[in-house]
């Protein structure tokens, strides 16, 4: 036990796990109704991990060998689950991202959630989330990672359904949990199969085994594909992406933290985590690439027609996740992970900015926001534009560099179709992003008199409180500078700098795709003469198809109703009531019935009964005596 305290690194990791859960427990049990105290505890327990994460990152900037700590958590027979920490560049970077963004969101929420009756609960749930996500980042074994992964699901469930009085919120929470669970079952099956046929599920071990080819290929493929199911669930890949847009029912800071920056990136992180293992299976890589591409296109097209600002960003998150998966699946570990990092920054920024607007105007519809003069909120408007530029991949913002890296990876893939798809995706991304920005920046039919009509309460609403704007500024700074850190990150993550051949074709095509997207958005929404209808509405059928979200929700709802509820549940219930129970009851009642049938013998004439008895006894006796 003394090792826990003498080794500062270990102590740091340990504190990262213990403090958030302590905060969760303390708040839930004792200080739920004391908002100030809850806030203090929660902030304390997120600031320390933040400092730990940054100091670890600083300390191990030149890390050569991964640092592993392992302790026995469960020792059954052949199932052995260690509890431990694995510190290598992959986990250190994720740790830092998670700690930073979750700290920023906690700060931001002071303003956003002010006065909510569930303020204490909210911070408790955020602490729980911090615990599970930090756990995912630094877990040493896959089973431990799975456990934290599930806890992520739970905290996501609790946070999405935070405003549980709203039917849509509780429904969305349930949907998120069940859909991700659906993927997780695949993940768990993968872990079970790996445990059975390989045994040791330590991440470092699995990776080295896959590289050394000491694992049969079928096992790698099966394992990787099943684990990818979990990724599909958490990272909202087609066809399990349906939960993410609904998850926007939660408070906006939650959307920023969980459903854009960190939690949904956990899937991508998982692939990065076991990248040597995952990339040893060409089948898994192919499936991942295909699904990533489908997800990218699907969500981008839906994002083009959504009118709820959070929905747009939700679909953009889905599409960017698809993009990351594409990058990883195309063979570039760095590209995918780098995009994860930059995306975490600018997407959190986007959401937090939108949160300011939503908080201020009390609506989610960005057309309404624009009409009410959204652009007058200077800081959020500037930062949201920065984030949008990053999302679209415009130089010099961080998104440019990471998208460039992914497109580069796709470009080197033998099949060029993926590259073209990627470009198309980048184009769509730029289009739908700037659709929002232009609508907000250049409102067409602002109606001041209407504004005064029924939004009087909002007028006396304060400006943007500093607790909300500081995180925006910090994130905006990240968004601007992170792109230039590409070289450092490469050295950190890979140990060496990639050789950059200046492929002008690639560069130009990427920039053109982004700029043309922005240009089209300008024509449709931005310019003075714009008709404010998307180009897609020239094809009504397609527009409708996109508006209905490719009918994926309908499909799942139909699947649930027709199969789970309609067929299995009903059939089994019928069977239980009628066949099993009915059978037993029939036996019971037939016993009663047969008793009733024979009851005519029960005449209650005692003497008659006795007479029969006597006659029979005497008769039998006589018969026996006669025989002798």
């Amino acid at each position, binding site marked *: 036990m003394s090792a826990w305290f003498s080794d500062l690194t270990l102590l740091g990791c340990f504190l990262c796990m213990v403090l958030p859960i302590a905060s969760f427990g303390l708040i839930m049990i004792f200080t739920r109704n004391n908002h100030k105290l809850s806030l203090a505890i929660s902030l304390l327990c997120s600031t320390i991990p933040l400092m730990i994460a940054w100091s670890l990152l600083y300390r191990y900037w030149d890390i050569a060998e991964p640092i592993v700590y392992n302790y026995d958590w469960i020792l059954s027979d052949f199932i052995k689950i260690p509890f431990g920490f694995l510190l290598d560049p992959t986990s250190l970077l994720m740790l830092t991202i998670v700690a930073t963004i979750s700290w920023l969101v906690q700060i931001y929420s002071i303003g956003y959630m002010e006065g909510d009756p569930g303020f204490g609960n909210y911070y408790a749930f955020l602490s729980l989330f911090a615990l599970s996500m930090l756990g995912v980042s630094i877990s040493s074994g896959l089973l431990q990672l799975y456990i934290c992964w599930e806890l992520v699901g739970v905290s996501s469930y609790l946070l999405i359904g935070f405003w549980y009085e709203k039917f849509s919120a509780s429904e969305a929470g349930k949907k998120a949990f069940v859909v991700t669970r659906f993927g997780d079952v695949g993940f768990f099956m993968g872990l079970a199969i790996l445990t059975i046929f390989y045994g040791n599920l330590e991440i470092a071990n699995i990776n080295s085994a896959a590289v050394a080819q000491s694992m049969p290929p079928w096992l790698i493929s099966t394992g990787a594909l099943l684990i990818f199911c979990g990724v599909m669930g958490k990272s909202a890949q087609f066809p399990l992406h349906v939960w993410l847009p609904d998850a926007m029912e939660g408070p906006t800071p939650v959307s920023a933290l969980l459903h854009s920056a960190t939690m949904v990136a956990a899937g991508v992180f998982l692939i990065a985590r076991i990248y040597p293992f995952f990339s040893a299976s060409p089948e898994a890589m192919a499936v991942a690439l295909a699904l990533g591409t489908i997800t990218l296109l699907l969500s981008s097209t839906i994002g083009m027609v959504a009118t709820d600002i959070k929905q747009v960003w939700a679909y953009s998150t889905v599409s960017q996740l698809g993009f990351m998966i594409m990058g990883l699946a195309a063979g570039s570990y760095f590209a995918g992970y780098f995009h994860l990092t930059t995306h975490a920054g600018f997407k959190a920024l986007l959401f937090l900015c939108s949160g300011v607007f939503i908080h201020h105007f009390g609506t989610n519809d960005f057309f309404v926001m624009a009409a009410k003069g959204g652009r007058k909120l200077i800081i959020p408007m500037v930062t949201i534009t920065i984030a949008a530029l990053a999302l679209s991949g415009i130089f010099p913002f961080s998104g440019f560099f990471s998208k460039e890296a992914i497109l580069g990876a796709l470009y080197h893939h033998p099949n060029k179709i993926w590259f073209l798809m990627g470009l198309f995706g980048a184009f769509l991304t730029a289009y739908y992003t700037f659709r929002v920005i232009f609508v907000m920046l250049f409102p067409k039919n602002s109606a001041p008199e209407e504004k005064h009509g029924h939004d009087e309460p909002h007028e006396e609403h304060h400006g943007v409180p500093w607790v909300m704007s500081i995180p925006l500024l910090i994130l905006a700074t990240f968004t601007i500078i992170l792109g230039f850190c590409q070289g450092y990150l490469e050295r950190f993550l890979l140990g060496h700098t990639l050789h950059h051949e200046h492929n002008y074709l690639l560069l130009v095509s990427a920039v053109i795709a982004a700029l043309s997207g922005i240009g089209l958005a300008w024509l449709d929404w931005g310019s003075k003469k714009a008709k404010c209808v998307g180009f897609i509405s020239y094809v009504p059928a397609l527009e409708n198809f996109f508006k209905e979200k490719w009918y994926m929700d309908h499909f799942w709802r139909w699947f649930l109703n027709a199969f789970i509820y309609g067929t299995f549940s009903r059939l089994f219930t019928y069977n239980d009531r009628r066949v099993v129970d009915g059978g037993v009851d029939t036996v019971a009642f037939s016993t009663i019935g047969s008793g*009733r049938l024979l009851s*005519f013998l*029960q005449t*209650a*004439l*005692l*003497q008659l009964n*006795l007479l029969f008895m006597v006659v029979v006894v005497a008769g039998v006796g006589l018969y026996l005596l006669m025989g002798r």
Partner: protein
Amino acid sequence: MINNVETYLYIALFLFAIGLYGVLARRSLIAVLISVELMLNAAMINFMAFNRFLAPHPAVGQIYALFIMAVAAAEAAIGLSIIVAIYRKMKSINVEHATELRG
């Protein structure tokens, strides 16, 4: 004749048969009880006869007889109280009217 076990046994048998007839034929519960007493006495005679002619020690049968007497007294007490209770409940002590347990 007097010193023959079978004589007593036949006497007891006859008494028993009469008692049985009474149990089977009479409708009044008290009469049934009386008949039962006859049957008990028949049994008692048997015990006494065996005691007199066959048993190794002549005290045993007498003790048995005394035991039967006590049991009979107990039976009579309980039986009569039941009869009284039945009469209170059903206003009759006819066996054929006591048909509450008919199926």
